[in-house]
């Protein structure tokens, strides 16, 4: 596994910072790419717009997707991801700020893999990753002898 990229789609800078902090703190993912809105996330995934130069074959290991996003909202992003055969298999973990049922139901309908409470609750995230079989994909190996 040469690159372990985690795509975080989040528009709230506070949440972004807290999420990245939580992930880093627990050695999750080598690289976190942040998209501040839905359009940017899609651009990243499909190598469009400012990410035109990117090799779109290289897909993130997991996408953390907030639902409330400017421009293109999270559900639409999810829809697009699942609609594209190339990205269909990328695990998407939806970030939720509430237990608003309709969001949960719609997300699952659209193929979200899991739900994590915002800002990323480490325990919950690990559980989600575990369930998705992603754990070793996203978790940095802890070097031996690092006492």
């Amino acid at each position, binding site marked *: 596994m040469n690159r372990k990229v985690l795509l975080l789609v989040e528009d*709230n800078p*506070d*949440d972004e910072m*807290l999420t990245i*902090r939580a992930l880093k*703190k627990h050695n999750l993912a080598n690289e976190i790419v942040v998209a501040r809105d839905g359009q940017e996330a899609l651009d990243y995934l499909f190598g469009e717009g400012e990410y035109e130069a990117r090799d779109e074959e290289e897909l993130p290991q997991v996408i953390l997707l907030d639902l*409330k996003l400017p421009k293109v909202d999270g559900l639409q992003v999810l829809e697009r991801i699942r609609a594209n055969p190339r990205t269909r298999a990328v695990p998407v973990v939806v970030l939720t*700020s*509430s*237990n*608003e*049922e*309709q969001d949960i139901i719609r997300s699952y309908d659209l193929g979200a893999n899991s739900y994590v409470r*915002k*800002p990323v609750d480490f325990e919950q995230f690990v559980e989600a990753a575990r369930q998705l079989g992603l754990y070793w994909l996203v978790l940095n190996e802890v070097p031996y002898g690092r006492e």
Partner: protein
Amino acid sequence: MIRNRLRMLGWAGLLLVVVAVGMAAVGYRLVGLEKSHYDDVEWLRNKLVNLNVITMDVLYDTAAALHPRQWRLVYESVGKQLTALSQRDGPKAAALAELHRKLGDRMSRFLDARASCAPGDGDPDLCRELLARLATQVRVVLQDLFVETGTLERQATLRLDRYFYLGMLFLFGLLLTLVLFTVTQLIPVVRRLDRGLGGLVEAAEHFRKGELEHRVEDGVRDELGMLATAFNEMAQRRKAVEEALRRNEANLAEAQQVAHVGSWELDLVKNRLWWSDEIYRIFEIDPRKFGASYEAFLERVHPEDREKVDDAYRRSVADRTSYEIVHRLLLDDGRVKYVHERGRTHYTEDGTPLRSIGTVQDVTDQELANRALKESAHELDAIIENLPLMVFLKDAEQLRYVRFNRAGEELLGISREQVLGRTDHELFPAEQAEAFVREDRRVLESGQALDITLEPIDTVRGRRLLHTRKVCICSGDGRPRYLLGISEDITQRVETENRIRYRLSLEAAMAHISTELAQVGEERLDAALDRALEEIGRAVKADRSYLFQLDPGGETFTNTHEWCLPGIASQMPEIRQLPVAEFEAVFRLFRKGEILNVSEPSELAGISTTLRDFMEETGIRSLVNVPVLSEGELLGIIGFDAETESRRWPEEDVRLLRIVAEAVAGALTRKRATRAIREHTWYLEELDRVSRVLAEHTTQREMLWEVVDLVFELFHADRAWMLQAVPDEEGFEVPIERTRPEYPGAIATGLRIPDDEFGRRMMERLLAEREPVVMQMAGVEDLPDYMKSYGVRSQMLIAIRPSLGTPWILGIHQCSREREWSAVERRLFQAIAERVAISLVGVRLMEEIRQSERRLQEAEKIAQVGTWELDLKSGRAYWSDQEYRCLGYEPGTCEAGYEAFARAVHPDDLERVKEAMERAVRGETEAYEIQHRVIWQDGSEHVVHELGEVTRDPRGEAVRMIGTTQDITRRVQLEQELERHRRHLEQLVEERTRTIRRQTQIIEQTNDSVVTTDLEGRVTSWNGGAVRVFGYGVEEAMGRHVGFVYPEGSEEILREQVMQPLLDKGTHETEVMLRRKDGTLFPAFLSLSLLYDETGTPEGMVGYAVDISELKRREEELRQLAERLEASNRELESFSYSVSHDLRAPLRAIDGFSQALVEDYAERLDGAALDYLSRIRNGAQRLGTLIDDLLQLSRVNRGELQLERVDLAELARSVIEELHAGEPEREVELVLGEEMVVTGDPRLLRAMVANLLGNAWKFTNREEHARILFRRMEEDPRVFYVQDNGVGFDMRHADKLFGAFQRLHRMSEFPGTGVGLATVQRIVHRHGGRVWAEAEPGKGATFYFSLDPGVEVPPEPANEGTKT
């Protein structure tokens, strides 16, 4: 030091020699030592050789033959040699000793070995061999020793040579050092000597020249240095002496200058004058221009003094006396200076004057000061002399006057010649003089000034008061020398002050009196007057002060108030009701407002002899009287007098007295006014009482009795009575009388007073007078006996003259005392008599009226006719008794009048009665006549017939009505009976017709159209509703085919949807569009049925049409409302969606960053900061929970219920599992009931169960054995309950339980948002159920809820109770 240096050099040389000698000796010794050593070695070698020889000999020659004893000898010899060797000191001694020991050892072994062989027959070979071996060994040892001694010898030789060379070298070095040292030490010494001596020589040369500043260098501490220092000091001291000399000279000059003293010397032989600089300065002469000589000096002396000076000098020279003079100098610029010259002349032995020496001092300043002093002393004298204060000076010893100024002369009235040189004792009376001397001594002894502010002194001009200040004047040595006294005559001032003080006190007294008199009430007036008199008497120092008041009537006067100085007799008892006329002359003055100020009775000669006589009689010497006047009326006199001395009171006193008189006048006037008001009030009040008594009583007798009682009481009479003024045959009857028990013997009631002469006369007099007649019986001469027997002392009588009937006499007797009745009492008495007279007439008339009334009433009663009279203005009426009865009242039980009448009239008839009455009043009808019903007090109904007529005043205005009322009830009753029978019959007929009419009417009246047709569809009836609905009139519709109410082109509809189904089924209902006459269409509900005839054959149709356009409109409205509601729901939903996201975002940041702080910076934060952060996080999380709960609450209301079968037990288990996961350490027992399946929205029911169990879980957290029950109630299986054994709550707050945000526990105890139970309630309500709770603090809580039983499903197989 140089000497020291040389000495040191010598010593050093000597030391060097000694050292050299010592070293030579040591060297020699060393050489000797080495030599002996060398000898020793030589000896040693010899010994060794010797030893070796012995050994060799022994070994090689004799060994074999030797006997052990011989061996021993050899051994001992060798041993001796060896011992000798070893005893020598030396390096090898030890080695030799060792050798000795080894040899001895070998030898003894050898001997032993030999001995073991047979003695004597020793094996020579063996011996030889042994010996050879031994010899070899000895030789080896000896060879070693040789070698060694050889070495030693070499060494000794070498050392000897070295010592020799060293000694030579050392000696040479020593010599060299000595020479070098001497040279180096001697050169500087010589150089220094040369330089030092040169300096000294040079300094001596300078010194000789007088250049004392020069100094010799004296840095080095040696003989030359010391010499130089001594030289320097010498030069220094010399210089100091010279400077001191110079300074003295300068000082002298300066002293002369400061003291303005110059010195001079005149050589009489050569006539040469020498002046000091100061003299030049004093004479202001330039020394360069002046050739000092005696003549030149004289030139400078003031021309006027020149001769005097010259003379004095010459005389002094001649007389051999010292010369001293003060004279003036005249300077070039015309200024004058005073100089004081002193001088003495020296003579030769033969007496020839040689020279004069003297001083000149500039004394201009002193001289001028002296002159000024003299002048100022003169001025001071003038001042003292002209001072208006007495100034005197006494000598300190004898206190004789030494100075006395003019003011003193004037004050004491004696000339200074009489005073000076005398003492106080010679001038003043002894006592006073003593006092003065005492003061003087005190001042002189203490040295302090004495201020005597008030000092009386008797002079020839009478007693004066002085203010004296005495001061001690001391001489230069501090001893008292004089006593200075300055006295001011303050007699006048003190007198003025006293007068002013007296005046002030007087005025204060007056002010006090005036104020008090102006304010005092009547009851305290006398006391105030007494006080005022006392104050004024004391203030003016009178013997007596008094107030005379004129008695009522003004003819006499009485002393009403008086104050006397103790010891002065009162005059009050004598001055009582003295006639004014006797003192008319003075009273005339008083009335004019004048004052009587008499200092001697004789002054009254021309004014009033009466008063003069009175004064002389009573011993009054002088008096002041002031009138007390009020608005020009003399009320009295106020005054004071003196018996002890003749006095004339000053005008001020009199003026003050006048002020007091005014105040007294005011007070008296006020008192009179008050009394008048009181009397008048009394008069009015009492008259009012009498009037009331008169008005209250209707019969004459009662009235008169009451009046007499009242009069008796009012006048405090001893007897009051009335009698008729007309006597009968027996005399005057006294019908009414009231007496005091003490005077019973008076006129007894019913007694007759004889109609005699006295009585008649009295009667005549009384009837003639309008006013009361007062009689003092004592003055009546021909008093009849019977009168005497009544014991009357005074009486007041008045005639009562009614305008109708006989006159009466009213009288009161006073038996206890003689009495005068005051004016007001007389006025009241008269007023009473007048009132009684009027009342008597009234009573009389009343009685007559009453009688005629009684007669009328009788008549009315018989005819059952009541009469009435109504005053139209007031509404009041007069009713006869029968009238009352006619109207149903007991006679007199109510106030007659229109009101009572109207009350009695039957309400239904009242309007009619009123109208009739008004018509009559307006004159529209001739008379008032009406028959109407009345309702009696007992409720019975009666009929009356009224007849009345209107009385009008001259202007034609209706004033009153008079009429009769007749009860005709009985007659009317009979009439009504007849009427009722008739009515009954009529009613029966009417009812029949009405029922028939009603049905048609209903149809006619209904708003819906009801139309009948024949089987063809032609209209046979068309009701009102149809007219209204369709707009066609009955005529228009009748006979037409019903198609005309259908829209055009709907024939088919009519036929197929209306007619055909009706004909088929018999009845039909449908909705169709119908048409009105105006062409508009409307939706209608149509209900049709067939009509049959008696045989059951259809004969027509009846149609019933309802306009349902309104209904349709309502439906549309409802639909819109539902849409709006839907929209607002959607909006609400999107709002709460936003809330759930956007409200949470900042919270996340707060919580997340707080946590980040805690995790990343924990080591930099202290406990408090961490605590704050944890509180921030708690708060944020709490708010998050609150938002969740609120959203849940709002969600409950949203959306449709998704009804499913839900197992509450299952839900409960999963909820408890979650709760347990949150707090795994807690052990809570959950007991679930059976058959817990219900129908409901699973989402909501889960929320409900979660909240209820969550609460139970939360509130049991302090229980060790927490237990939660969730099951159905046994009594009512529709009800579920959740029961816990937690803290519970107080039922008093149960009403708050289900309100949002209501909490019953503190956040610190049990956290929560207060929304949970509100949510529960909503959910239950949405499920058509009910929720309630029961609890008790500390005993747990139970929450009951029911869900709509209609949606319950049949129970499933039993569920087991579960334990968690």
